[in-house]
């Protein structure tokens, strides 16, 4: 059917457009955070703040830790929080995807703020649990650090984006929308329907 083929072709174009915008934004954000002045003025102090908050939580959990800059130390274990462990890379991925997705700017900014907060919360759990594993189950630290938690945090970032995007999709389309006729007439999309 021609209409069906046209709809699929349009969906494919939108999908490719999204990916192109996503990749472009990712490269731009990468250069921004990798730029030395930004790294020194924003990323490093932000990572140090993560270390302080994580140290505070570990203290509440009964661990006797000291925090110096981006390092958390105890008599049993010490860890340096670096790029890759501060949630920034997941935030880059999430932010690029949200900004690349077609939605009103206000909704995007709300999504960015809530998503960033959620990613940092998950990352806090990661840092605290990795420190605990390093102190009490050191044999498990390497696999937990490299594979498990890194994958889990990024996956959470992707899921947060998908949740936000699926909410955005269910919003009614603008009433004055011209161009191609809307397949659903602007009503919320049924989960069983195809785009």
């Amino acid at each position, binding site marked *: 059917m021609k209409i069906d083929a046209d709809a699929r072709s349009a969906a494919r174009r939108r999908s490719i457009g999204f990916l192109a915008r996503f990749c472009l934004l990712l490269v731009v954000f*990468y250069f921004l955070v990798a730029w030395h002045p930004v790294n020194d003025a924003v990323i490093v102090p932000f990572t140090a703040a993560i270390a302080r908050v994580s140290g505070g939580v570990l203290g509440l959990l009964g661990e006797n830790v000291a925090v110096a800059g981006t390092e958390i130390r105890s008599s049993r274990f010490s860890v340096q929080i670096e790029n890759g462990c501060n949630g920034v890379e997941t935030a880059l*991925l999430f932010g690029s995807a949200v900004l690349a997705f*077609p939605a009103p700017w206000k909704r995007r900014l709300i999504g960015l703020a809530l998503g960033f907060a959620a990613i940092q919360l998950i990352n806090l759990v990661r840092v605290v649990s990795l420190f605990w594993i390093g102190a009490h189950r050191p044999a498990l630290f390497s696999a937990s650090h490299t594979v498990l938690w890194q994958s889990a945090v990024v*996956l959470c970032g992707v899921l947060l984006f998908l949740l936000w995007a699926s909410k*955005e999709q269910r919003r009614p*389309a603008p009433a004055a929308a*011209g161009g191609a006729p809307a397949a659903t007439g602007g009503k*919320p999309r049924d989960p069983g329907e195809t785009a």
Partner: protein
Amino acid sequence: MTRAKPRNREEPSRHARLNLDRGAALRLAAGFAAGLAFWFAFSAPYERLLAAAAGGLIDAFESPAVTRLRASGGEIRVDRTDFPPASPRPGLPASDLHFNFVLLAALFALGRHPLSPRPFGRFWIAAALLFGIHVIALVFQVEGLYATRLGDWSGAHYGALARNFWAGGFHFYLVAGRFAAPFVLWWALGREEETSQPLRPRSRRR
């Protein structure tokens, strides 16, 4: 008669469908666990394959071809035939390169029938593309090592532009690329399944 305003943005509801429910969450968790088990089981032979492919690619553009890559103990050992015999051989951590296979497996498991032939086939196509990305990332890592970590030799053989290109390229992979690659592959190949299924009549129940 009023003229409809031209749209200044794409209509969100007409974008490809995303459907997250409890079933998807369970499939995601199962995909993550299966991907992790597969990754742990096949990391060692995969790293050998990766070292052979990246070594071959480096050799193809090297004159004379002196680089030899060997995978052992979770590292890619970089050897050159022109290294002094007594000098230590640098080792590059391999798991950082390719653990994103687990992410790819988890994302492809999100679909409704991830093990049916079409989505499963697409998953392996995506995994093959991810292998290509891993090979290129390893080439960047080795060239980045040559360009920045071999002292005077690096300065003599790599200019500022080449140093930034190779080392910066690998840094981009570490910070953003390795996480973005599975997402992009899934979005391009995995989600396609969601949009390309034929419309089926749905029964109404009261």
